[in-house]
């Protein structure tokens, strides 16, 4: 602190001369407290700490509510007779928001009998979030419904799949629905 401005030097000297001494027994008292395992007092802002905990919990809950539903889930269920072919070899692949809107729905034939969709399977039908219209009306259309299981990842087995097509292997339209 050598370059202290000249006008502050006197005050600097006064400040340096101010010295205090704690009571001489403080060190010994402190050691006694340490040997007894005494803990320090509460630190931080006692009033704010519970508030911070509550706010953190609320923020975490909000984050869970916002993040979890937005996570895409994939449900692959097999094997049923959905195309009217007679064999329980069809599967449903659903990509959806958990317990929310469906982003993709595919009906496939489990060619390799693996019990789930693989590259060897044949996808009979796919629709995305929007409604897929059918611009033709072939003869012999049949509607096959299968209910109920969890197809949207919501938890309860309350979803059904409805497939409209012409047997044995043509699917014209499909949708999943939730039973209320």
């Amino acid at each position, binding site marked *: 602190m050598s370059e202290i401005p000249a006008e502050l030097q006197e005050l600097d000297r006064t*400040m340096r001369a101010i010295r*205090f001494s704690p009571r001489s027994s403080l*060190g010994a008292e*402190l050691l006694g407290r*340490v040997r007894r*395992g*005494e*803990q320090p007092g509460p630190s931080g802002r006692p009033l704010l700490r519970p508030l911070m905990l509550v706010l953190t919990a609320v923020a975490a809950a909000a984050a869970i509510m916002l993040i979890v539903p937005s996570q895409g889930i994939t449900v692959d269920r097999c094997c049923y007779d959905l195309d009217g072919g007679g064999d329980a070899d069809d599967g449903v692949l659903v990509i959806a928001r958990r317990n929310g809107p469906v982003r993709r729905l595919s009906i496939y034939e489990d060619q390799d009998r693996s019990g789930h969709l693989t590259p060897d399977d044949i996808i009979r039908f796919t629709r995305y979030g929007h409604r897929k219209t059918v611009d033709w009306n072939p003869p012999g259309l049949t509607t096959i419904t299968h209910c109920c299981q969890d197809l949207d990842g919501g938890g309860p087995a309350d979803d059904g799949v409805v497939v409209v097509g012409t047997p044995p292997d043509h699917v014209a339209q499909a949708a999943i629905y939730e039973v209320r």
Partner: protein
Amino acid sequence: MPVHTPGPSVAKSYVGVAPEAAAAACRRWYQAYGEPLYNYLRFHVASPDIAEDLTAEVFLRALRKFDRFDPSAGSPRPWLFRIAHNALRDHQRQAKRRPTLSLGSMRDLRCEAPSPEERLLWEEEVAGVLAAVAELPPKDREIIGLCYGSELPISEAGEILGLRDSAARTRLWRALARLRKLLAHE
């Protein structure tokens, strides 16, 4: 007086520290830094009793965080002063919520004055200086407490406050200039 034997409760009290090791560290640290810490705190509080309580609190907090101190990183001094800084801040918050009247005693003031009259004059001067320090903005009080109270080198005071050497120096000069102004108006 019965001889105290540290029991298992003591062993559990300080994270990762055997009771005797805690006591030994406390003794060592208090001998080396007890008085500078006390002086640092004393520059911020009007009563010796509060400064003594806070000094003890600093060491108890340090022992609780004993496992976080890395002796290979050097002297524990900056670490202890950071703990003191936080303990003081907590105390000031509590004092705001529960204001108490301080007697402002100077019983702990060191004085080489040969006569009682000179001692009284010195006490009056110091009381005036500390009262003026208390009127300064918190940042000024902090740097003054660290540089004069604890007698830390300005570079180390700056380190505790997260300031570079030159910034700490500038802050100290400005704080002193404001203090001088306040004292001139008394």
